[in-house]
């Protein structure tokens, strides 16, 4: 039996279509069909001056817009040799980690709903709302933040922002305990996730998986550690790594990252120096001819931007390595022999964002 999951389906997390071949409840083969959200962003970027491209990256991984902003800004900074003031770097890290929490909370909520725990969805989104409120207060937007600029951030943190973040961190630690009690420790949840969709280390490496998917398969690969950017080398945090590679491990990695993000946030707020937040740049920004590549650890994995410049105001070529795209490519392998009910668990655990896959 061939069954079409998506592009309109409650748990494909966007417009993803999966053509499943079933044998009863067993999945024999799976073929993902992507491209429903293709907007030609890379080409659009090539037609515009460098700094005009930053808002477009909001539309890539729309659950972690700030990570994308940072990625492209780092790329342009490398291309043009722009220095970033120290305070701006700290602010960037702070916002990235808040963004990571927001993004992982979406994962947590949707993953819960996929498995039938609808209440988890609303709890996770309730706390995400708090993060969004914080980010809104700082950046002025709730989803497409566009709050990283070449050479810094557009504005300093608002008054009393640090205290609000700390209050949230304190509350959120308790809430994570609650999530654990409601979902992580639940017998049914564990039965549904443990040993399901096992991704062996070799396969993960072969497919180039990154982010929580790779770390759950025993690959201790986190850009924040292996190639530290901004001030990640000055803060202390652990990279959770699990050996099992199943849905449960991927879930645990993200839960642990929530805690680690809180740790980073607290350190950053403690160490943040005063100073300017933006480097002055000329009105028309023309980087020298060359090629630049930047990579950041987005909540979904290794997000990279590559830009080629020929000295004109517009980039000649832009390429984006979207972590979701790479992680999704491993899905058919994971689904072999799984049950239909496992499909949503496995797909949910990869945590793809279609805006980034289709670009």
């Amino acid at each position, binding site marked *: 039996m061939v069954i079409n999951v998506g592009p309109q389906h409650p748990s494909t997390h966007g417009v993803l279509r999966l053509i499943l071949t079933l044998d009863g409840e067993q999945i024999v083969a799976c073929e993902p069909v992507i491209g429903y959200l293709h907007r030609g962003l890379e080409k659009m970027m090539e037609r*515009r001056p460098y700094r005009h491209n930053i*808002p477009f990256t909001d539309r890539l991984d729309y659950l972690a817009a700030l990570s994308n902003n940072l990625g492209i800004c780092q790329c342009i900074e490398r291309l043009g040799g722009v220095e970033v003031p120290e305070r701006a770097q700290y602010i960037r890290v702070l916002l990235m980690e808040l963004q990571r929490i927001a993004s992982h909370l979406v994962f947590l909520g949707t993953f819960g709903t996929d498995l039938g725990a609808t209440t988890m969805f609303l709890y996770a989104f309730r706390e995400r709302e708090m993060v969004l409120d914080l980010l*809104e207060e700082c950046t*002025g937007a709730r989803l497409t933040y566009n709050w990283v600029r070449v050479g810094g951030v557009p504005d300093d943190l608002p008054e009393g922002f640090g205290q609000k973040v700390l209050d949230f961190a304190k509350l959120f630690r308790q809430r994570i305990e609650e999530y654990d009690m409601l979902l992580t420790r639940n*017998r*049914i949840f564990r039965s549904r996730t*443990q040993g399901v969709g096992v991704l062996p280390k070799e396969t993960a490496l072969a497919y180039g998986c990154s982010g929580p998917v790779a770390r759950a398969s025993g690959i201790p690969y986190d850009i924040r550690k292996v190639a530290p950017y901004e001030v990640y080398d000055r803060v202390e945090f652990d990279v959770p790594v699990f050996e099992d590679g199943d849905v449960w491990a991927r879930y645990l990695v993200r839960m642990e990252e929530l805690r680690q993000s809180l740790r980073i946030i607290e350190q950053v707020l403690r160490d943040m120096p005063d100073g300017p937040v933006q480097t002055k740049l000329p009105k028309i920004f023309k980087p020298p001819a060359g090629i630049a590549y930047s990579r950041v650890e987005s909540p979904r994995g290794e997000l990279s931007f590559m830009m080629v410049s020929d000295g004109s105001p517009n980039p000649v070529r832009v390429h984006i390595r979207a972590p979701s795209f790479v992680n999704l490519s491993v899905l058919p392998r994971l689904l072999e022999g799984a049950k239909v009910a496992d499909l949503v668990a496995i797909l949910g655990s990869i945590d793809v964002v279609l805006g980034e896959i289709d670009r």
Partner: protein
Amino acid sequence: MRDTEYNPLVYFIDGLVTLFNGMVVTWRNLWRPKVTVRYPYQRRPVPPRYRGLFYLKWNEEKQRLNCVGCTLCAQACPTDVISMVKLGKGTHAGVSEFTMDLGRCMFCNLCVEACPFDAIYMGPNYELASERRDASLFRIADLAQGGEEAVRKNIETIERLLAEEEKAKPAHAVHAAGGESE
């Protein structure tokens, strides 16, 4: 917390216990204050930095809009949202028409950052949906702080200033300026 080997009874009891734990959490939440904002009746406060529909700032002191029609914002816009008609030139220049196409606007704030005259700001207005396509086109009277009235006063002030300037200038300079503008 990884599982031991499957044992129906252990799993069953574990299931009951953990289910009960979960129910404790949901019970606790049953009595927590609710977070719903009843939107059309209640509204969340909008933070000062909120990026909604932008507006042209009204300068009470000078009795005009701050905008001088320099098109820097239009140039900074990635999606060509802004177009404007300049009114006059020199120190007293302003705008007589300023249009923005909401259908293309990304609310990215780049126009605000580009403006050196503090003329354009992103406001708290976010209820911009409409059933008509042409309603996405905002003209100067919709954007200016103070609306229709402000636009009228703005043009009045600028025209008066321009006229005064012209009067103060020697005759040949006026001629030259007129020639240029034609």
